[in-house]
């Protein structure tokens, strides 16, 4: 008999099963209440009528437009550049892979202000890459393009991780079948792999888009704060908090609703569209 089996056959400990279940439920409820209360507090501050009235405020609309444009653009860039990277990380082994994985994860844990400062050191006009960009007349700090750059930097990991997992989940046997039929790798990628991994890619785009939408620290440090060109909704909330609380509340609720909708839409979408997970037990390739 293995030691593991001996452990399993031991009678239930002092904590009975029902107490165990209740503890789990109580702990979960406490955490959920903690997570939900700030949102409820925000919603309690604003009446629907006032919310709608303030939505027409040009300052709110301007920040909303800028946020949608920049985070949309960031999501597209992340999808275009992140998909190949996720594919390579899912399918290839190479020297230094660990290092690349850490590099990709780093923006998730880095304080956004540090990220913004580092971006300045790289892409500012005196930065190591920024000097060349400047020679071509491309300037990122204080521009809308700079906002997109900051968002891509902060949000890319939120796409690469799920996309990579999605690629790893594609059933290897299907690829073998495609190879038997003499399908080229590009053909297999576009006609077999991408459709199968689509739910994961969609999930990744939504996650990274939501992260880009909420980006604050890297944006204000790297791109600055200027209504109309770099003041996205999170920045507008921060500034409004100091001068116009009602506008701050409206912007916050709007951001909350958009992020909530994005994440919920992800889960509520037709199962066939999002969650046609490959058969269980399939090995990564």
């Amino acid at each position, binding site marked *: 008999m293995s030691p593991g089996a001996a452990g399993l056959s031991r009678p239930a400990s002092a904590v009975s099963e029902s107490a165990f279940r209740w503890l789990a439920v109580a702990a979960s409820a406490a955490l959920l209440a903690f997570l939900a209360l700030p949102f409820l507090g925000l919603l309690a501050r604003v009446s629907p009528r006032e919310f709608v009235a303030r939505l027409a405020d040009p300052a709110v609309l301007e920040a909303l437009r800028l946020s949608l444009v920049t985070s949309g653009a960031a999501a597209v860039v992340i999808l275009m550049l992140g998909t190949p990277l996720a594919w390579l990380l899912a399918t290839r082994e190479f020297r230094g892979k660990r290092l690349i994985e850490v590099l990709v994860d780093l923006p998730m844990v880095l304080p956004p202000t540090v990220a913004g400062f580092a971006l300045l050191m790289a892409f500012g006009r005196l930065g190591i890459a920024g000097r060349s960009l400047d020679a071509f007349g491309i300037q990122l700090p204080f521009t809308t393009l700079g906002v997109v750059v900051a968002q891509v930097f902060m949000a890319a990991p939120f796409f690469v991780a799920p996309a990579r997992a999605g690629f790893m989940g594609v059933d290897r046997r299907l690829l073998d079948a495609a190879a038997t039929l003499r399908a080229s790798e590009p053909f297999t990628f576009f006609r077999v792999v991408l459709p199968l991994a689509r739910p994961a890619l969609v999930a990744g785009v939504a996650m990274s888009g939501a992260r880009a939408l909420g980006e604050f620290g890297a944006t*204000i440090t790297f791109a600055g704060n200027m*209504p109309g060109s770099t003041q996205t909704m999170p920045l507008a909330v921060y500034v409004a908090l100091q001068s116009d609380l009602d506008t701050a509340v409206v912007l916050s609720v709007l951001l909350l609703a958009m992020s909530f909708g994005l994440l919920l839409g992800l889960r509520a979408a037709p199962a066939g569209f999002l969650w046609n997970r490959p058969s269980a037990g399939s090995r990564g390739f």
Partner: protein
Amino acid sequence: MSQTLLISVFAAASLSGAFTEIGRDFERAHPGARVRLNFAGTPQLVAQLEQGATADVFASADERWMQHLSEGGRLTAPGETFARNRLVFIVPRTNPARIGRLQDLARPGVKLVIGAETVPVGHYGREMLAKLANSPGFGSDFARRALANVVSQEENVKAVLGKVQIGEADAGICYRSDVTAPVARYVRVLEIPDPANVVASYPIAVLAAGTQPDLARQFVTHVLSAEGQRVLAKHGLIPIGSRAP
């Protein structure tokens, strides 16, 4: 054994150097007392206080925000002016926009960084630009053209310094006291003539919601004392004893 008494001081970002030293001096002079300092843009501190943050002392970079707290019934007594400050322009040492005189700041294409309107340094800065526009040799559209050059409205004065020090902005508006030795390594100062300069007044007050009113009162007294004033002057602020520039 003596008990440790903690006072919490909320102070404008431009006071960070001076108040850090004053806090240490105060702790030395009052054994058992600990001073916890919180520096941020003045409006952010006010927002924190209004949202329920507890502090004993508030030091503001302008009278507007102190007045605001006073109207909200959050002070034990009206704010007392303890220091003044004046504005300067700063440009990176490399001076990428080749700014030689103040008039150059209104030249198209110059990247100017100032404080947001809500932040005292942003409020004073706009006032100063308007005064410059009325000064001989500037032209009445100077303020409008300079404001058109603004590429970012920062949320506190130290963020303005950051953008100029890194060399990303061509010029910025900050307080004279902000140009400390570490900052001066990266920036050059352009003085603003006295008639156009706007003098910032810093009021300090004991907060009604504080937990240590006596110690808070002693801290304010210390800031106003000769010793406190000496430290403020050392950090580039104008002590209240001396005449405004």
